């Protein structure tokens, strides 16, 4: 188990490496290479929680594009993470398995990271008549189209799959739940890093920008917005810190929902403080805003998750205290 000092060192190393890689044109592949060199997959195997928090936090903070999410999901589904293995994500705002078999045919629809365009296999989790299954699909059986949307730099692909399901392997339902929990925790860490970054940008602007003969940071209306943003970010970070060595379904769902809420409120406060600058593409704020909007929908946005959690509480008529001292 890595201690706090090792973790801090690792975080700094990852951040520095990502900062260098992100300056390479396009970003994408360079960041994945850097993560591989740093031993990201080994860390994921040995210390899954710390790996997600360090790497995805840094990705969010640096606005770096990577395909590490594929490794996270592959590992959670019991596969060896490799650069040639991509995993099909559910459609935007959903978290059900993206595929369905009919007889020996597989149909699937969802999203994928940029890795899907170069991978040798696309791992598709699907519903079958008897439960869940996983199918390794050849790239030729998948139709990919790059998603431009609000954040073309994110590299997402819209994917449709028509394939032979003869080689489908049965999958325990808990494996998909685990994949969703790992994915949500990773994305929540990334959103937390991006939210911190937005707040840093807005604070830096507030102390520099002069109006009425003083920095706008001296106006209480501005200060309170930034304070509210910090309160939200710190609450999110605390939420990410609870739970065991492996992300669990309900705590990861809550973390992802809190992340979505946080990103929305932090972005709103920071954009208002950044004012005209935050409305331009000259200032980096817009990148973080757009990235968090894209990420929030992967494995469910805050509203859908909150509704789902509320349904669970009402179905069991219980309010679990998931955190003890």
């Amino acid at each position: 188990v890595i201690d706090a000092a090792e973790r801090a060192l690792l975080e700094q190393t990852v951040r520095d490496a990502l900062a260098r890689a992100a300056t390479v044109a396009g970003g994408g592949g360079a960041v994945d290479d850097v993560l591989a060199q740093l031993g990201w997959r080994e860390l994921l195997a040995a210390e899954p929680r710390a790996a997600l928090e360090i790497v995805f936090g840094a990705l969010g903070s640096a606005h770096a594009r990577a395909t590490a999410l594929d490794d996270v999901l592959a590992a959670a589904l019991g596969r060896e993470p490799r650069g040639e293995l991509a995993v099909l994500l559910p459609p935007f705002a959903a978290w059900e398995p993206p595929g369905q078999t009919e007889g020996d045919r597989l149909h699937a629809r969802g999203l994928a990271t940029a890795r899907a365009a170069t991978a040798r296999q696309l791992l598709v989790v699907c519903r079958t008549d008897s439960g869940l299954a996983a199918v390794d699909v050849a790239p030729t059986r998948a139709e990919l189209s790059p998603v431009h949307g609000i954040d073309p730099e994110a590299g997402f692909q819209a994917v449709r799959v028509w394939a032979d399901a003869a080689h489908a392997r049965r999958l325990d339902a808990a494996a998909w739940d685990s994949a969703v929990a790992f994915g949500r925790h990773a994305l929540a860490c990334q959103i937390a890093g991006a939210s911190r970054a937005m707040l840093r940008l807005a604070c830096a602007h507030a102390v520099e920008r002069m109006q009425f003969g003083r920095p706008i940071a001296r106006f209480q209306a501005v200060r309170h917005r930034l304070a509210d943003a910090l309160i939200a970010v710190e609450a999110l970070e605390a939420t990410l810190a609870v739970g065991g060595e492996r992300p669990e379904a309900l705590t990861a769902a809550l973390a992802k929902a809190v992340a979505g809420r946080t990103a929305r409120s932090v972005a709103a406060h920071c954009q208002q403080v950044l004012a005209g600058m935050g409305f331009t593409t000259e200032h980096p704020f817009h990148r973080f805003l757009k990235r968090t909007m894209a990420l929030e929908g992967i494995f469910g946005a805050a509203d859908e998750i909150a509704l789902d959690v509320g349904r669970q509480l009402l179905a069991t008529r219980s309010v679990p205290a998931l955190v003890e001292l």
Partner: protein
Amino acid sequence: MSFSQGRMEDSPAPKDLAAYRAQLHAWLDAHREELAPPYTPPGTLDEQMAQMQRVKSILFDAGWMRYGWPERVGGKGGSPMLRTELGAAIAARDLTDPGLYSLIEVLAPTVIEFAPPALAAEVVPRLLSGAEMWCQGFSEPGAGSDLASLGCRAVPRGARGGASSWVINGQKVWTSLAQYSQRCVLLTRTGSVESRHRGITAFFVDMDTPGIRVAPLEMINGVREFAEVFFDDVVVPADRMLGELDGGWAVAMSILPYERSSCFWQRIAYLYRRLQRLVDVAPADDRAAEVIGNAFLQLHALRARSRATQHRLAGGGALGAETSIDKVLVATAEQATYDAVRRLLPGVVEIDDGMAGEAWRSEYLYSRAATIYGGTAEVQRDIIARRLLDLGDAG
């Protein structure tokens, strides 16, 4: 007393806390009937106060009330987290109101730290065992959020350095439970008003001292929980000074760490209980699911944050400005919980004259103060902006 583990280290291992929690809850289960309020909740404030002191007395005799407090004041030692667990357990079971109970956490640590040791050894067990109630004489009509401007004056009889007693004149307000209290931790002005936080001295005052008059105030929910307290030539012996002469600000600030950790953990346990009550009776539809899901998100994030704060404190960290974040989160989550009640149980707050309506209405109205007492939400945001975000001074 089944729990017989030796003295715990200051930062207990989670498994030790879990063992303590399990034994505590088993004991509370076994004594359920004895501990239950002898009235139908919410009860009157008189009934609630009697119940709280009765529960404290039972828990003190059984030893639970003594874990986490130093031996020199009648405790059994161990981490303060043990008493946090106790406070949360009794709040989660609705045995006492956490707002009334948590005054222990606000006042006892301060007296232990700043009172002469013999005085602390004499009075703290009386507070813990339910023999006494204490109040906090801080706020004044002219000193609310701006506490450093307080004016209740203490004048030495004789030379300032060697006075044998002090004479106090002035007024306090929003003093919770003053009419039930035997003692008061009182902040007084001993320097010029311009000296602000440097000219304040704290005293531990007996409430039966001649010249003290208590006038309870009725709160928005009809409960007379707090009071105005008038001081008219009240003579207090010099050995009742808490801390240094003109050192009262340090005494006042010493309240913060436990108020912002153990008290909050108790309040959070109580809010989970309230959300549970709502979940027990809410309609099983998607509108209710959405409202409840959102309230639960907030409570969960708050609980996660508060846990981290307690572990920082137990690990020897000094709690400061960052607890303003905890304060805002508690207040926001509390109001969100009662807003959820009002949305999902139409009329229960506004027109229900049954016992459920009475309880929800009282608590709903009280929850509106969460963003005001203990430092307003605005003051907390100012602290966050200046101290945590380095935005400099306002204005």
